[in-house]
């Protein structure tokens, strides 16, 4: 210590740096506090509370003006009067209060004594019972104790009750004094009930210093008013790949008004969800506490920031708006983004599985039906949509129908022949553009036509007699062809092809044969037989053959350039063998052989057999990608190629692909057979959006069974029926199951339209329906429309019968009606009623009844006993309008009052039953006889 130690630097300087760093550290810590406290959702909540307060203030104004001022004045006056009276009695009140206190004291005292004794009694009783049960000698002593204490308990209890009674008396006296004031107060309160409620509401959301303090950083854990809101969803989980994380949605943190009525016009994020009766409401089908938000909308429910929740803009405009307003950017490293609003219905299918249609999801349903209808699902495998029919016509006997030239011209561009066709364009699309490619395409087309004709069967064709074209046109309109086809200048059904320009396509003999019995040409066709007579068929043939497409006729047929054919064949052969072998093989082929080979390769390459029956391709596998999990397919698996004008999202890719299937080949150098193959369907915007929604809905996400809308066995059977009904297009002619018939919309006289089938299941007997479907008979002779013969199998028929029964909540039994024994009197009464009510007037087809017009005609009643269910008949007679709105059947028993009080004592129920009984024994021949006699 003697020598001072050397110094290194000035300590003062250190303190300077110490001070600087400390100050900076403090500042940076303050920075932490600042960024931690600054959250967007807090601003949103503040804004929402402000909005709510404004709304409530407006409500308050209204409520206050609704209060009857005079009444209020009056009640207030009453109240103050009551108060005055009370004040004048203040002395006695004080007095009574003192007494009350004394009484309470007394109660407490006696209660202590009672409870003390009571516990001993309980204990003694327990030991007494216990010892007695075990034959313990100590039981005797406890019996004695119990006997000793019992009266004391009783005594204490009486004392207690007495004390309580004393208190009650005093209390009653007090109450009587106070009553008047209390009641007056209550009346005032009642009148102001609404305004007080609203005032309290405003108080809860109004900003205040206290609230600011509670929401201040560091203090906001005590009782903040700005809080993260969340719904924890018990049955739902986020799929974290081999792990299920509890789903929680915090969306309501910002979307605060989402489940509250009254914010329909509020700015986002506060707007009320549309259709609260269906969504979010606790009594709706999708309560927020069970379904949450991200289940349907997607996105990250855990997050409370605009960007990290993975909001997805609807379109470019909204994107630009969001970028400006919220600093939105695409979350690159997050797959499970929200669905843009226009595709939200895709999420319905997560839980609503196994149904042909999802209730209220129109866009999704449209997309699904289009996918079925256009044959998308013929090529693309999708779980749950297997076993659909091939949508294209059977080509196994195409040679008997049309010629090679027509086929090749058609393949060049189907819409040139028929603009409304569902056949997509396959050749000459943008990725095959250019003169060289056009040659290759034409070669492939000609080869395909060649192949189809060469391998075609040649079933026997009838000779078409001469027919009357004008008559044919009328028949097309009359017989119901329009339920499925558009023809004769009427745009109607789209189930089958539009019947235009057939003269340019088919030959008359084939058409005649086809019309007579379509199944003869193709066993798999969906076209039913209308049981046409020869002359009917000839007339229709004549009409259809007169329709021609001149432009198409005059167009040149494509030619197969031999070099193009060789090139294509070489390409094919090279994929299987070495180049030299391929050349050798090619040189060995005859020209026809070449075309046939190329045709076979082309069909295999394009997958024509997925939609058409083609000989030689019975076992061929579909060529398209499976779409079962397309809605969740990883984004990087979508090849956008060099297309940069659309956002790189799943939905935009799908939509672009639908609208322009070959676009992703743009700018790529690919061989002829490497190019994209999806054909061009020429979809409208609405259609492509709907199909995109459908494709997005295809996910194999596992949803807990509790959360799913599971179908019962019966519901599954209904869906099976629905699928069949869709295939047969029953709803082209009949209205039922929520759909209106096409024919009904184009038939002027509703009585002339095919019958409505609502409630068919409870109306007709199963056995009858079964027979009818397989062998239709005439029920309504006045109808010109003809129920076709579909050639259904037994299983299909049973499915339809059961479908109708289940729709009406019935099970099928195929048990006919068992006739009850009926007294002759009753039968006679029935007959009398039948005649007096003039049932036969309509229910009989005569010249006079037909003169009234089709609407007034009714089915033949002799069919009743085999056709109708007896309970339905009762309901029908009771109130036909209730069963079928707009029916011409008169209601004879309005409000169950009989028009004929003489019969059966005027008992309407008895009368109806009598009519029913009579009907089930009705025999018009016998009736006519008896009338005659």
């Amino acid at each position, binding site marked *: 210590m003697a020598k001072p*130690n*050397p*110094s*290194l*630097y000035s*300590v003062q300087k*250190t303190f300077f*740096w*110490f001070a600087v*760093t*400390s100050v*900076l*550290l403090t500042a*940076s*810590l303050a*920075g*932490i506090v600042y*960024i931690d406290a600054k959250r967007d959702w807090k601003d949103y909540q503040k804004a929402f509370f402000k909005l709510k307060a404004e709304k409530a203030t407006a409500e308050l104004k209204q409520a206050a003006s609704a209060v009857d001022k005079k009444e209020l004045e009056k009640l207030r006056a009453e109240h103050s009067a009551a108060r005055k009276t009370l004040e004048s009695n203040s002395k006695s009140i004080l007095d009574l209060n003192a007494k009350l206190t004394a009484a309470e004291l007394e109660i407490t005292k006696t209660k202590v004594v009672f409870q003390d004794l009571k516990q001993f009694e309980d204990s003694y009783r327990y030991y007494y019972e216990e010892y007695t049960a075990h034959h313990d000698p100590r039981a005797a002593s406890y019996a004695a104790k119990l006997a000793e204490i019992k009266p004391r308990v009783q005594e204490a209890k009486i004392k207690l009750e007495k004390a309580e009674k004393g208190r009650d008396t005093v209390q009653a006296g007090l109450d009587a004094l106070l009553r008047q004031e209390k009641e007056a107060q209550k009346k005032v309160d009642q009148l102001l009930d609404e305004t007080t409620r609203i005032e309290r509401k405003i108080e809860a959301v109004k900003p205040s210093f206290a609230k600011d303090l509670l929401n201040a950083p560091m203090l906001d854990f005590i009782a903040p008013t700005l809080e993260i809101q969340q719904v924890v969803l018990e049955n739902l989980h*986020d799929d*974290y*790949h*081999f792990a299920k*994380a509890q789903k929680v949605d915090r969306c309501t943190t910002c979307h605060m008004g989402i489940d509250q009525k009254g914010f329909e016009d509020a700015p986002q994020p506060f707007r009320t969800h549309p259709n609260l009766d269906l969504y979010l409401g606790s009594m709706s089908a999708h309560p927020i506490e069970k379904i949450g938000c991200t289940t349907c909308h997607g996105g990250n429910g855990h997050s409370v920031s605009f960007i990290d929740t993975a909001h997805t803009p609807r379109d470019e405009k909204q994107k630009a708006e969001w970028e400006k307003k919220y600093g939105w950017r695409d979350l690159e*490293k*997050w*797959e*499970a983004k929200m669905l843009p609003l226009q595709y939200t219905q895709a999420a319905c299918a997560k839980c609503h599985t196994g149904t042909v249609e999802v209730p209220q999801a129109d866009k999704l349903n449209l997309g699904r039906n289009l996918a079925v209808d256009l044959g998308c699902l013929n090529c693309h495998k999708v779980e749950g949509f297997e076993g659909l029919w091939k949508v294209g016509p059977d080509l196994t006997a195409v040679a008997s129908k049309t010629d090679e030239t027509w086929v090749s011209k058609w393949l060049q561009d189907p819409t040139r022949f028929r603009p409304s066709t569902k056949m997509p364009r396959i050749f000459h699309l943008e990725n095959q553009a250019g003169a060289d490619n056009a040659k290759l395409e034409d070669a492939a087309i000609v080869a395909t036509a060649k192949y189809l004709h060469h391998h075609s069967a040649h079933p026997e064709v009838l000779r078409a007699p001469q027919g009357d074209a004008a008559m044919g046109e009328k028949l097309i309109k009359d017989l119901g062809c329009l339920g499925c086809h558009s023809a004769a200048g009427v745009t109607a059904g789209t189930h089958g092809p539009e019947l235009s320009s057939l003269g340019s396509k088919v030959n008359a003999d084939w058409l005649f044969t086809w019309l007579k019995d379509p199944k003869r040409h193709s066993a798999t066709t969906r076209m039913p037989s209308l049981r046409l007579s020869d002359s009917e068929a000839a007339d229709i043939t004549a009409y259809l053959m007169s329709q021609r497409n001149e432009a198409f006729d005059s167009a040149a047929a494509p030619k197969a350039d031999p070099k193009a054919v060789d090139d294509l064949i070489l390409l094919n052969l090279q994929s299987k063998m070495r180049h030299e072998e391929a050349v050798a093989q090619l040189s060995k082929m005859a020209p026809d052989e070449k075309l046939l080979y190329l045709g076979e390769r082309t069909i295999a390459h394009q997958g024509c057999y997925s939609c058409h029956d083609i000989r030689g391709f019975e076992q061929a596998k579909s060529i398209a990608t499976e779409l079962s999990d397309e809605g969740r397919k*990883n984004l*990087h698996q979508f090849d956008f190629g060099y297309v940069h004008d659309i956002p790189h999202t799943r939905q935009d890719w799908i939509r672009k692909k639908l609208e322009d299937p070959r676009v992703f080949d743009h700018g790529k150098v690919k061989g002829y057979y490497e190019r994209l193959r999806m054909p061009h369907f020429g979809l409208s915007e609405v259609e492509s959006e709907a199909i995109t929604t459908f494709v997005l809905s295809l996910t194999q996400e596992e949803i807990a069974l509790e959360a799913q809308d599971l179908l019962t066995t019966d519901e599954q059977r209904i869906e099976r029926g629905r699928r069949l009904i869709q295939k047969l297009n029953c709803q082209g002619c009949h209205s039922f199951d929520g759909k209106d018939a096409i024919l009904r919309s184009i038939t002027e006289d509703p009585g002339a339209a095919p019958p409505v089938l609502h409630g068919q299941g409870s109306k007709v007997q199963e056995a009858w329906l079964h027979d009818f479907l397989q062998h239709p008979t005439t029920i309504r002779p006045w109808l010109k429309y003809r129920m076709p013969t579909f050639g259904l199998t037994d299983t299909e028929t049973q499915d339809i019968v059961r479908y109708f029964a289940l729709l009406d909540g019935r099970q099928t039994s195929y048990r006919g009606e068992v006739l009850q024994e009926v007294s002759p009197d009753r039968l006679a009464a029935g007959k009398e009623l039948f005649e007096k009510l003039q049932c036969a007037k309509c229910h009989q087809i005569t010249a006079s009844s037909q003169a009234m017009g089709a609407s007034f005609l009714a089915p033949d009643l002799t069919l009743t006993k085999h056709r109708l269910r007896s309970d339905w008949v009762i309901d029908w007679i009771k109130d036909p309008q209730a069963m079928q709105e707009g029916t011409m059947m008169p209601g004879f028993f309005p409000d169950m009052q009989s028009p004929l009080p003489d019969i059966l004592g005027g008992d309407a129920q008895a009368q109806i039953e009598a009519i029913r009984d009579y009907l089930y024994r009705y025999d018009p021949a016998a009736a006519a006889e008896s009338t005659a006699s």
Partner: protein
Amino acid sequence: MTMIKDAVNAFCSPVIIFTASMVCFYLFVRFPRQATSMAVSLPLLGLALAGFAFGLTDDHFRKIITTPDNVPIVGMLFIFLYFTWYAVRKGVINDQRMERGESTIEQTETNEKVLVFPYLIFIEFVMALAYAIVLVVWSIFLKAPLEEPANPTISPNPSKAPWYFLGLQELLVYFDPWIAGVLLPTFIIIGLCAIPYIDRDTDGSGYFSFKKRRAVISTYLFGFWILWVLLIVIGTFMRGPNWNFFGPFEKWDIHKTVPLLNINLSEIIFIKWLGIGLPKLWIVRELPGILLTLGYFMVPPAILAKTKLKSAYQKLGPVRYAVLMMLLLVMVSVPIKMYLRWAFNLKYIVAIPEFFFNI
């Protein structure tokens, strides 16, 4: 603008950037005095900063640089550039003093002792505070990354190890995994541990110096800068989807296709040169490669011990000398293998896939 960027991209191909770095490195250790002088280093610093600033105008470059986990690398680069410069400069100053017969800066103070409190403690204290500030500010302005939940079925393209291991991952391009992932890291650790047992000369301990320790320092700096930091930079900033090489201003296109076909030494010898086809037996097939490898590790040490490194051999003794040569040869083999790949598309010198043994 685009022209400059294209030029930079072209310059940044692995061969050129690697070679250029080696040349710069050589110049730096050969002429340390000039290289650390203000006249040279200040313009270079300006150039580096200007280049960096220019790079930031490019979207892609900015995106890669500001990827949260890449930011530390940028920081590390500048920090280490500075401290390398600083240490070498101090060494050069000391060298000059010693040449003039003066004692080193450290030596002038070495006998003076100062109290730890306050002098050392205060420095530590203030530095700790400053460090804390850096951490806090860094945390405020840069969010930690959080991507999608882990998904074992979908691997991101490219999948990268943490940045400090990316040098090793980059080596995977040139070496079999057992070498790049196991052997070389082991050698790095062993080599680092061995340093004090090989370089035992206590002269040069405790102060900055360069001249006296040129070989040692150069080796260390080479290992650190070229084989570790440069490879990290390449692996992080220039390896994109499918581990393809991308220039700093080249967009990472997942579809980029480059020729990658490489051949083994045995194929070069037996097919290309001899034209007799690959022998069936692996030992025959790989004999040239095995001999070459053994030769690489045997011959140079033996020759050098007699010639250039005679004095070192005598100083170290056979065991230390052998260890040193082994370590050095392994280290040098890394750039050698890289150049062989670039020059001859050489895949493996020895390729015995039967035993997963490839060199």
